């Protein structure tokens, strides 16, 4: 009886997954084999991989996503570590999460105010004698803003995995004569790897297809695949090509998931 009940429940979840995960991906795949006149063709994939423009765009997307992920990781890990040792850890975590409550577009516009020619940062640079710099529409500006937006998503999983570490393991390591650095390297970091992996996935994958920021902050001087998808679906209405780029991104994401998978469990 009980078993049947749970089965009835799982049907719902299967239906959900089929309707909202598998079917859309299949539709996307189906669409990607259609050309602009609705005929079946491999042409979209051919033009993607033969075009220097799209390949460079793919390279750009992956490159920026890697840089942004690295920067957020470098900032987030020490921060999460310190936070997990603090007394009111939950309060600090709340402060980290707080910016995610603000709409992404508003944050981008706030950065425009900071980075503009007569913005706050340039006022400060002028004040200390460096003089105004071109900050908007540069790679640096794009990376800064993208990293700022993604940081909470990196800190949260790392923080959670650090808090979950049994304090007695660390005490044991110290008792057995490990130095602080050794404890860190051999105990804390390996035990928090799950959080790091989750963080990398949570940051790398959305950054790969980020597109609003490329226009608002990057002024379209930074072009990623997200830009191309937007254009194909909205302007050209060449859904086939847009879908093809979407499939390429999905493949890139699957590769990321595979590379950052939990190897211990995979080996069993």
């Amino acid at each position, binding site marked *: 009886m009980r078993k049947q009940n749970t089965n009835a429940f799982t049907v719902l979840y299967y239906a959900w997954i089929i309707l909202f995960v598998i079917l859309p991906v299949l539709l996307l795949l189906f669409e990607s084999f259609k050309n*602009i*006149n609705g005929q079946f063709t491999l042409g979209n994939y051919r033009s993607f991989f033969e075009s220097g423009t799209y390949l460079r765009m793919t390279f750009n997307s992956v490159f920026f996503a890697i840089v942004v992920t690295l920067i957020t990781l470098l900032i987030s890990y020490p921060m999460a570590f310190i936070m997990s040792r603090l007394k009111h850890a939950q309060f600090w975590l709340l402060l980290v999460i707080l910016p995610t409550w603000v709409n992404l577009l508003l944050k981008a516009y706030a950065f425009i105010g900071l980075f503009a020619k*007569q913005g706050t940062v340039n006022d400060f640079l002028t004040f200390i004698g460096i003089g105004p710099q071109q900050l*908007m529409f540069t790679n640096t500006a794009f990376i800064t803003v993208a990293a700022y937006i993604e940081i909470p998503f990196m800190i949260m999983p790392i923080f959670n995995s650090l808090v979950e570490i049994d304090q007695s393991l660390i005490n044991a390591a110290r008792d057995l004569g490990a130095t602080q650095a050794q404890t860190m390297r051999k105990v804390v970091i390996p035990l928090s790897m799950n959080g790091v992996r989750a963080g990398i996935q949570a940051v790398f994958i959305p950054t790969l297809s980020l597109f609003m920021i490329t226009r*608002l902050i990057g002024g379209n*001087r930074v072009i990623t695949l997200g830009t191309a998808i937007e*254009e*194909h679906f909205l302007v050209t*209405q060449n859904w086939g090509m847009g879908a093809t780029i979407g499939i390429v991104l999905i493949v890139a994401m699957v590769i990321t998931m595979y590379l950052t998978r939990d190897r211990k469990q995979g080996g069993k």
Partner: protein
Amino acid sequence: MRKLMKLTLSILCAVLLLFGFKTWCEHLEKQSVAAKPTAGKQKKLTIYNWGDYIDPSIIKSFQKDTGYQVDYETFDSNEAMYTKIKQGGTHYDLAVPSDYMVQKMRQEHLLKPLDHQKLTGFKNYDQRFLNEPFDPHNRYSVPYFWGTLGIVYNDLYVKPGSIKSWNDLWNPKYKQQIMLIDSARDIMGMTLASMGKSVNTTDEPSLAAARGKLITLMPNVKAIVADEIKTYMAQNEAALAVDYSGDAAEMLDQNKHLHYVVPNDGGNIWFDNLVIPKTVKNEQAAYAFINYMSRPDIAAKNAEYVGYATPNKQAKARLPKHITQDRAWYPDQKTLNRLEPYENLGPNLTERYNDYFLEFKMSN
């Protein structure tokens, strides 16, 4: 488990409460509409227009003068409007598509032909703005406003009068100073115009040449942005911008240093037009509104409020001289003659324009 149940229940309660609130609000809204004296099923006119594109007092006076009750809905892009009308389920009596969209909707039989017998104000329009290639003999549309694509410059960085032609943008002294509107059709069109070609060019060698010329503009380009261009220009962020006259009018209102020029070597002239979609419910009211908007006094009032150029000759005569003599908004005949409206190029050429534009964007 208990906790989970509680949480689920409270979320459900919140949803129910919000839903109830929404229904209540809608109920109130309906009541206030029904309370109006002119309400009635036969008397309703549904207009689908761009946001902030009519003087609200005109709708009020139209309701008072004719007894129709106007239901005014807005859209923010031609494509969004097209999709909504094409998919049906809507009952718009009037819509305001741009030129190329009129052509597309006309070709797809989404528009009702106009009965010129019923158009009382058609003679008020300037012949120059009628019988355009996107709708020969105005069988389906009546022009509402028109405008141009041009160059906005900031006199803090650019000497007034030094910008005359599109080719001035290629001047090496404007390194990293130009903002472009993020639109393949406009930027490719402006490049084609700078080469003395039509903005509706279809032959491959000309398009490839335009792509090559456009790429050489990249060192001068500061950014390729959409609506934000208005904010940036108002904040003196860049010296020059390529944008539509409508956007330019908004920028100029915010910053005294900005000026708008229509280059003398051709380019785009655009029209927004009143059309009656196939979804029309109250045709009589639609004609009443078109005729009302064609009245010189009403069209002049509307043009003053919206700030775009009116195609209504009689209305233009009623506008203050400082508006109608401003070359930026009403270019002289010679410049005007070189401007062309966009034609619907079909999917393959649209794709070509976009691919070249994308290559240009990637070229830095």
